[in-house]
């Protein structure tokens, strides 16, 4: 079966949470891209991507994070990543993402960072 992937959006304090679930690969990345695009177009620039239920990510998924980072920052926001499991974190790490974007242990932590800003 094709990769299973789902993205759901919810507001949380000052931030917009995008919870992603399942497998984020070259097949499902366009769906994630569209969800971020819509959120940004609706004026949300404080984005937290909740990865608690993300089981897999490939470079196509990481590419989505990369391509929106400057955009939201230029608009005074940020894109933070929360609740990565160990295997998924490793993929971010190997490519040097921890130096590029804010990776927080929980969604709560990521939202607090926005509120402190």
């Amino acid at each position: 079966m094709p990769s299973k992937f789902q993205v759901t959006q919810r507001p949380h304090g000052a931030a917009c949470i995008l919870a992603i679930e399942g497998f984020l690969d070259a097949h499902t990345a366009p769906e994630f891209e569209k969800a971020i695009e819509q959120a940004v177009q609706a004026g949300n620039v404080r984005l937290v991507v909740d990865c608690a239920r993300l089981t897999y990510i490939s470079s196509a998924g990481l590419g989505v994070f990369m391509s929106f980072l400057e955009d939201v920052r230029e608009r005074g926001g940020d894109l933070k990543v929360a609740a990565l499991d160990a295997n998924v974190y490793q993929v971010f790490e190997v490519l040097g993402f921890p130096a590029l974007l804010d990776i927080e242990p929980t969604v709560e932590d990521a939202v607090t960072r926005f509120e402190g800003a």
Partner: protein
Amino acid sequence: MASFEKTFTLHVPSSTENLAMIRDFVSSIGARAGLDDAQVLRLALAVDEACANVIEHAYGSEQFHEVTIHGELDNDELSFVIVDTGRHFDPAHLQSESVEELVKQRKSGGLGLRLIRTIMDDVQYRIIPGEKNELRMTKKLHKD
């Protein structure tokens, strides 16, 4: 025990829909090789990246071509060979921009081969003109 090679092959249409199936195939062989879950996941990732490249770049996202994945397992190493009959490329002439650069340029790609090279112990690309292109990547087993 003599080194006995086991060979597995999967042929699928060139659609990203099939990446999940490709990862399952690789994961089964990785588990058979005695790798742990985290290692199996990285192996599946490396092959996923290579196949996604073939689908996107070698076949220009046309879905009616074929992607072939050979898995070769012996006592010492596990190799995967990804075969396509599409456009070839020259890995030596790729720019390797830093991830910082890619972010600045709002790029959404350019990380795949880097991941493959990080995960696998050896990566070779071979063009057989007019016939096929092969990306062979090898993981040593029982590393000290």
